[in-house]
């Protein structure tokens, strides 16, 4: 089976937030819940980079480890999914997750947490595939339709990649080889280091930095 992963190419992400919008629409997530978000580092400064973040479907998931009711499970595709019928909304997974992926709709008194909601890699949940229960609780099941998560499929710059980790890393490796390790400092990579002459790029970039 595949080992599904997301990868966001920071050299390509333009912070258009289309992945966020597509995710909300496709999965019909409740208000206040965002399964995916785009974070921009060094906003407005030289070297600004944006990354689209959601559940990274960790191989050794911290959320799974701290869950007091053991509601997480890893599918054959390497996806970390959870059972909302078991989840109690305690928030421990949110404390443990490095990426801030688990989200909680407000439910009941004192804005207490409802059942946790997070990115499912558009793979639904433990309910019957394509059932209305599945769609209501977990959103779309595009994987069962033979499609990839909508966020990645519709990414305009192909910054956000989703799929089997071998395929993803192969695509990214080719990109790195073509453009150099990084274009953060053009001078270092293309002029001084000259790891390799970039294909299809005429002339040299300024070495002034």
């Amino acid at each position, binding site marked *: 089976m595949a080992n599904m992963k997301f990868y966001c190419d920071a050299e390509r992400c333009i912070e258009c937030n289309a992945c966020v919008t597509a995710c909300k629409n496709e999965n019909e997530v409740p208000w206040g819940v965002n399964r995916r978000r*785009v974070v921009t580092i*060094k*906003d407005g400064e030289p070297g600004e980079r944006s990354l689209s973040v959601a559940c990274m479907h960790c191989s050794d998931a911290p959320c799974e480890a701290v869950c*007091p009711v053991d*509601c997480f499970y890893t599918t054959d595709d390497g996806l970390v999914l959870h*059972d909302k019928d078991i989840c109690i909304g305690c928030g421990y997974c949110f404390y443990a997750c490095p990426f801030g992926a688990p989200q909680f709709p*407000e439910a009941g008194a004192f804005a207490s*947490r409802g059942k946790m909601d997070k990115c499912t890699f558009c793979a639904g949940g433990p309910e019957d595939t394509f059932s209305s229960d599945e769609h209501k609780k977990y959103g779309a099941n595009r994987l069962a339709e033979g499609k990839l998560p909508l966020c990645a499929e519709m990414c305009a710059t192909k910054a956000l990649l989703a799929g089997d980790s071998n395929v993803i890393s192969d695509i990214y490796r080719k990109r790195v080889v073509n453009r150099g390790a990084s274009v*953060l400092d053009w001078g270092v990579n293309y002029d001084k*280091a000259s790891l390799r002459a970039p294909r299809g790029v005429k002339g040299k970039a300024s070495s002034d930095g």
Partner: protein
Amino acid sequence: MLSKSLAAYCRALLLTALALLCVTPAQVLSQQAPPPSPIMVPNPASDLWRAVRQRESERDLTGVTQVRGVESNVLITQSGEEFRQFRRERLIRDSGILVGAAAIGVFLFYLIRGKIMVPGGLSGRKILRFESFDRSLHWFTAITFVVLGLTGLTLMFGRFVVLPVIGPEAFGVFANLSKTVHNFVGPAFILGVVLLLVRFAARNMPSKGDLKWIAKGGGIIGNAHVSAGFFNAGEKVWFWSVIVLGALVSATGLVLYFPNFGQGRELMQLALMLHGIGSVLFIAGSFGHIYIGTIGTEGSLKSMTTGYVDENWAKLHHDLWYDEVARGDTPSRASSADRAAAPEPSIPASPDKA
């Protein structure tokens, strides 16, 4: 032939060395330097992402995002992994050991020491020790404490103890109920602790005989008689433990109770860990308190159920208080209703009582 070529080679070597010596560093810099090896080139991207990941500076760790939420602008936090390791490898294991050891310890103590009896038996003459408000307050706090303890332990150990027995779906329902009950009983417990502080703090202030009482181990080992007032030093230690641990679990519980105030994850991780440590110490301590108050000592439970203790019990455990009551220095606080229900109090309440 060989020596000649060798000499020529040495000369060439010498000349090269001399030429190298004459070149100053400035001249080296002015020349076209050979391209540095790729290893030597710092990768600015790796520096940036390392800074983001390791949160080296405040500027790097906080980004900008359109999504509103708690710390939604933070790309990566590492503290979650520490929280996970502490919870899974230390907190749950050590808490289990502590609670188990406390239970076994109390049981072994009972086997060795047995019930502490009142020498000479009970006299049948009663003295009012706790009036109805005190008893109600005690049981109010005690019941909320037991409910919170059981529901809290479910959340800490249930996954490893209860879930394998009843299955994940049934345990999910049980745990959900536990969490809801825990959340709603919690504020009642906070109220109980505050009222306990107001009601009993004055009687639990350290007094002269306390050190002596502690030095003699409270007379619980051996048969040495130890003097004590209304509360002995052991009871005072437990009282202040209740206040301190109660304040700790209340404060940390409130941090976890209201996620809508936007507190960060690191604060909530810390709160959850302290909440666990505090409550486990609390539970272990309560085993001792419950033991001494019930099967450990003859006649103690009566003081919290009926409010009255036997005269001989008072002479044994709280002789200084008994003397005061006998002299009439400490007016019994019995209300008229309590007095009416009193089973033949030998020492009547002082007439000038409030």
